[in-house]
């Protein structure tokens, strides 16, 4: 939590199924419209495939799968490109919202009753007028999804 209290002020928000998520704006490199994605046979289910971002290879992660929010619709999903070290990843999401400033004290801790899959990637919850914003740690989202029982 200390990291959030000092570092995170602005969050990029996006929607997956009915849930809104936020990631620190500094972690996001850019947002892309639907891209042609090359499938990688035998890859883990949450890896949609690879896409070409100006010559760099980006691994696309299907957040519906990753966050266990059902099957992604075939429409025109958006890509939130995040950088982890030298590597680029794209979160495939349904809709990208605004960048919202969040005061430090607005962060609330992750409820202990959250299921393990979510608990593993959420670092905080922010109350908004009409809904709750789940704040994700992109690095944890990118780690192998451990099994949830």
């Amino acid at each position: 939590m200390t990291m959030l209290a000092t570092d995170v002020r602005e969050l990029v928000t996006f929607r997956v199924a009915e849930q809104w998520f936020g990631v620190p704006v500094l972690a996001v490199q850019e947002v892309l419209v639907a891209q042609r994605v090359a499938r990688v046979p035998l890859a883990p289910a949450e890896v949609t495939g690879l896409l070409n971002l100006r010559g760099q290879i980006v691994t696309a992660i299907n957040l519906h799968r990753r966050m266990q929010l059902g099957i992604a619709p075939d429409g025109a999903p958006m890509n939130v490109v995040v950088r982890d070290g030298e590597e680029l990843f794209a979160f495939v999401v349904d809709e990208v919202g605004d960048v919202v400033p969040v005061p430090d004290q607005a962060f609330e801790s992750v409820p202990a009753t959250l299921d393990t899959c979510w608990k593993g990637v959420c670092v905080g919850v922010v109350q908004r007028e009409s809904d709750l914003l789940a704040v994700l740690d992109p690095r944890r989202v990118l780690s192998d999804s451990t099994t949830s029982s």
Partner: protein
Amino acid sequence: MDDLLRDFLAESAENLAQLDRDVVELEREPSNTELLHSIFRTIHTIKGTCGFLGLHRLEAISHTTESVLDLLRQGVLRVSPEVVSDILRAVDVIKTILAGLEAKEREPVGDDSLLIGILETWLAGEPAPESQAWDPTLLEPPPSSISTPALVASRSVEVVEVNAVGAEAARDAEREHVETPAHTPPGVDAAAGVAASSLRVSIAVLDSLMNLAGELVLTRNQLLEICMREEGSPWVGPVQQLSRITAELQSVVMKTRMQAVGSAWGKLPRLVRDIARETDKQIDLELKGADTELDRQLVQALQDPLTHMVRNSADHGIEPPAVRRAAGKPEVGKISLNAYHESGNVIVEIVDDGAGIDASRVRTKAIERGLVRREVAEGMSDSQILRYIFEPGFSTADSVTHLSGRGVGMDVVRSNVERVGGTVELHSTRGQGCTVRVKLPLTLAIVSALLVSTGGESFAIPQSCITELVRFGGAERASIADLHGVPLFRLRNELVPVIGLSALLGLHTVSGEQLKTLVICHVGSCRFGVVVDEVLDTQEIVVKPIGRRVRHLTCYSGCTILGDGRVIMILDPAGVAAMGGMQTAELRATEPEARVAGANGAASEAYLLFDGGSTAPQAVPLSRVARLEEVPTDRIERAGGRMVVQYRGGLLPIVAAPGVSLTAGQSRSVIVFTEGSSSFGLAVNEIRDIVEDAMQLELGNQPGVLGTTVVAGSATEVLDIGYLFARSRGEVA
């Protein structure tokens, strides 16, 4: 680190590599004044700079060395093996000090007075006091130097020689000094000229330049495609121009990464000289094609294997002069390195005219080590048997024998070379010598690939692995034979295992009526066919690494971006073969006969017996077992319909033997199998025993069971690990 110091170190490192070579060369060509001047200049530069940087220890030793060199240069001293040895020692000290500087940014503490004293005897021509023997223990041994005891031994002999030769040299010098006019050293200006025309650029800059050039090529391809579509477009002219320039730029950028292979063998003359002196042999090292260029990364990858193989040749291959004379060979042994380009590859050959390798001893050893069954080994030709030298663990132990010395680390050589996509072959004729041939691709970054499509997806297969393409289907369907459910293709007289790519990758498979293509691949020495729906094109592709989330998939070696911006995966034929059920050992085995023999000979292996809950005990070949673990059943989790356990920071898929129940609150023995980078665990009730027996395996038809055999009086089922692997991946139920 201080910029000045860093530049000094970088410059000195280059110069010193050259120095070793020059000094050894000088020994052979004592009259080569050009060499002497070059050596003198290098030491002089070091001395000059270290005075400036306040490096006193380095200054002292380089000053004395310079003085000795100066005498040699003036012709006062004669070039002799002894003075060369002392100069080399001084060079070693200089290297040690520089290495210390690099590590700690200050001069390492040490006393060089003895070495300086010895060097000074050359200056004065006066006899060194007997008691003041050279003590090499004062020196840390330089990285590639010969061992210390040898130094002591050789030196104690030399001291005597030094005096005699020294005095004689001094007399000679007096005479010559009058006769020969002093040589004017080639001006420092010339050296400065060379320096000005080249520039030190960091590798990172070159790499990013390389990437950018690759991107430019892709963008150009896209532009070209757009222009092609529009007829009479005014863009055609400029775009073609752009295309040409881009191609040129790419080749120039490629060149910046190229390095002469000679830079990988700069240390070899010194190495061979030292070994020769140490073992009282006479060895002539011949280097051909040192300016053959290949990618920087490959030059680096080549360095250690080369050093190793040359050391082997010098140390174990070349015989002592007396033995050579008796065998009717010239006393001077010869090792030659030859590098050249051949059809898109770089070949480096290491040839020695030594004793060669005794195939019968390799045979005995291979049998002893359990690498091959006696009956099989005895039926193998010498060249087949020699391949066992590359097996890991072949000769790690008892390195005292002549034979094992030859093989030490050859498996490391092979794995280093194979890691960068190369191959190693070894030929040896008893009594006549040994030839090792290393084949490397020119560059790692760009490969020529065949584009294929199967199951609606496109893939690239490196051309280097492909030997031929065979169209089949329809009437020729008959050419596919079936053995115990395994498809084999009759390629002329040989049976080639067939792997269906679509099925392997879990893609949509088209019915068998359609005409398909069989891509015959060659990995190691194993041949197999990969069935694809269609062959699209051949292309030079830029290899891009794939992300860590898919890197564990052994069937891919990377990905690439096509001209239209599409990303496609590059298949790794070795990985595909391994996934297709070929054993890694088979992929390494060199001859088809050996492979067949290995399959028949499987019954003589050691087996791990366990209770799998079945009525009969079960067994798996011990060689396939990576580890045994005890896992509490509570730790076994279910994910995506498969069972996994968190293991060593990752997930290990678990397959339960048919009769094993994973009741909560208990623990189960888990046999861990590993193939390439994938693993799985087989949960069993109890591990029973390890037996080593020549078993008669009766093939069964039950899936997952290879067959049955009799162990200690009871029928035992031998499990099919390939099948279990497939089950662990959820490919079969």
